[in-house]
């Protein structure tokens, strides 16, 4: 504030400024700065990548320009005209449906189980030890069992993605439920809200900030495990083309898959975050 120009802090300017004025002003002036900072290091890395790979005949890693060409071909075709051309939307769509399908399955199971473990001692004694032991088992380790249980194909893929998203949501829901202030239960019960009706009216809303942290982590993990999830013999999906391109030594397609997963994961996290901000407008640390 002390560095602001004099005109901005003068009473006349302050009087005409709407309440949201300073914030909007900062957004407008500051807007190029933040993306520029965020891009600085990736651009630097791309430059290093370029000089280390471009023009080298025996480089195992393709230069950025080649990856870009492959990405354009993957998206719209017309360059290489091979099995990968113009298939990006199909693969992206397949992966999106597995990520969000597995994630949705994880939400509708982990949320109620988490509420019960957090709030009902018997449930905690019954379930908590089992999940504690299952939780460290990597999703990759589940791959063979998943294929025996659910067969080759998308059902195994859904299961593995579900598994990746399940534990972060479960753990954060339990944590959220257990850290609800006891005072709020007293307040609810003296106002006439007792027993199981406290789940919907006290436990769930009070644990919501922590649940949302779990949802963001869970969706992130769903993307992280998508490649393993699509090692189950499915033909489409970003994970599936990465594995296929790897076998064909098409490293530029592998990198394209990585880039698209990164961007899709980032965008879906943004969406969850925006929903969270709306629902958590009451919370001083979110809103």
């Amino acid at each position, binding site marked *: 504030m002390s560095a602001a120009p004099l005109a901005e802090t003068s009473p006349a300017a302050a009087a005409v400024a709407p309440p949201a004025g300073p914030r909007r002003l900062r957004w407008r002036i500051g807007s190029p700065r933040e993306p520029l900072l965020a891009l600085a290091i990736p651009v630097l890395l791309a430059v290093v990548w370029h000089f280390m790979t471009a023009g080298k005949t025996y480089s195992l890693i393709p230069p950025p320009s080649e990856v870009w060409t492959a990405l354009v071909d993957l998206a719209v075709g017309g360059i290489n005209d091979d099995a990968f051309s113009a298939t990006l939307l199909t693969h992206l769509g397949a992966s999106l449906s597995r990520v969000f399908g597995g994630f949705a399955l994880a939400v509708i199971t982990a949320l109620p189980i988490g509420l019960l473990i957090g709030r009902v001692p018997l449930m905690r004694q019954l379930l908590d030890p089992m999940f504690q032991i299952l939780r460290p088992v990597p999703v990759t380790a589940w791959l063979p069992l998943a294929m025996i249980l659910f067969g080759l194909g998308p059902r195994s893929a859904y299961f593995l993605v579900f598994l990746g998203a399940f534990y972060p949501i479960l753990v954060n829901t339990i944590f959220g439920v257990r850290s609800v202030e006891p005072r709020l239960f007293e307040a*609810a019960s003296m*106002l006439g809200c007792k027993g199981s009706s406290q789940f919907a*009216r006290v436990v769930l809303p*009070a644990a919501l900030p922590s649940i949302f942290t779990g949802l963001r982590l869970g969706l992130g993990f769903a993307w992280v495990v998508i490649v393993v999830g699509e090692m189950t013999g499915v033909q489409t999906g970003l994970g599936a083309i990465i594995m296929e391109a790897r076998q064909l030594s098409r490293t530029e397609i592998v990198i394209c898959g990585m880039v698209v997963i990164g961007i899709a994961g980032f965008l879906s996290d943004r969406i969850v975050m925006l929903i969270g901000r709306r629902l958590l407008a009451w919370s001083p640390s979110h809103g």
Partner: protein
Amino acid sequence: MTDIMADPTIPILDIKGVSKSFTVQGRTVEALKGADLTVNRGEFICLLGASGCGKSTLLRIVAGFESATSGEPLMWGKPISGPDPSRGMVFQDYGLFPWLTVRDNISFGPKSRGRPAAEIRDTVSRYVDIVGLQRFADAYPHQLSGGMKQRVAIARVLANEAEVVLMDEPFGALDAMTRERLQDELLDLWSRTGLTVLFVTHAIEEAVFLADRVVVMSPSPGRIDAIHTIDLARRRDVSSPAFNDVRRMLSGQLHSHHARAAA
């Protein structure tokens, strides 16, 4: 406020020989021993004492949050077995639901008891007016000052038709000016509504200013020592000689316990 229950021959609250002890690391601590207190409908009672005298324990037993080890707390002659909307609690730390607006905090109780929506709307707007929070009806608790939060907490139990309002050092966390204003507002509400108030405090002046009767309590074991009727006319002048006499008398009584406890 349900007048069917108001049988003048039965006290609204009858605390009969209530004791509470609990075990801490193998040692039994008597938080409250043999407390006897009868409260009539419409009375303003202050429980006054130093920390550890069992005043909050007694209040929590009356609220139904804790059960007595022995003895019996009765409301309208019936044993208190758990929390109930007829006994509303106002906590020192407010206990508001942070995810609900002022309006929704106040409607929480009526909604829980399944009142019709139109009635809830009327009740809530009436109590928002009474506590003077019209401009903040749609604000969240974290946007309010301490005094405003406590007004919401009071409105919340009144809107829920509480007959007895239990207040656990409700103004203890507020600054002096806000505290005095809320004391006045509380007395005003009380005199207009015929509420029964059980008010815990460790501030002598607050007790003398508010109460019909002051229950003096002392620690180890927590117990009721004396019950004083305050005969001063309302609104009480805290700087008057009569007010000071009462304050000095209560102060002497409280300090004699400390001296005895120390000896």
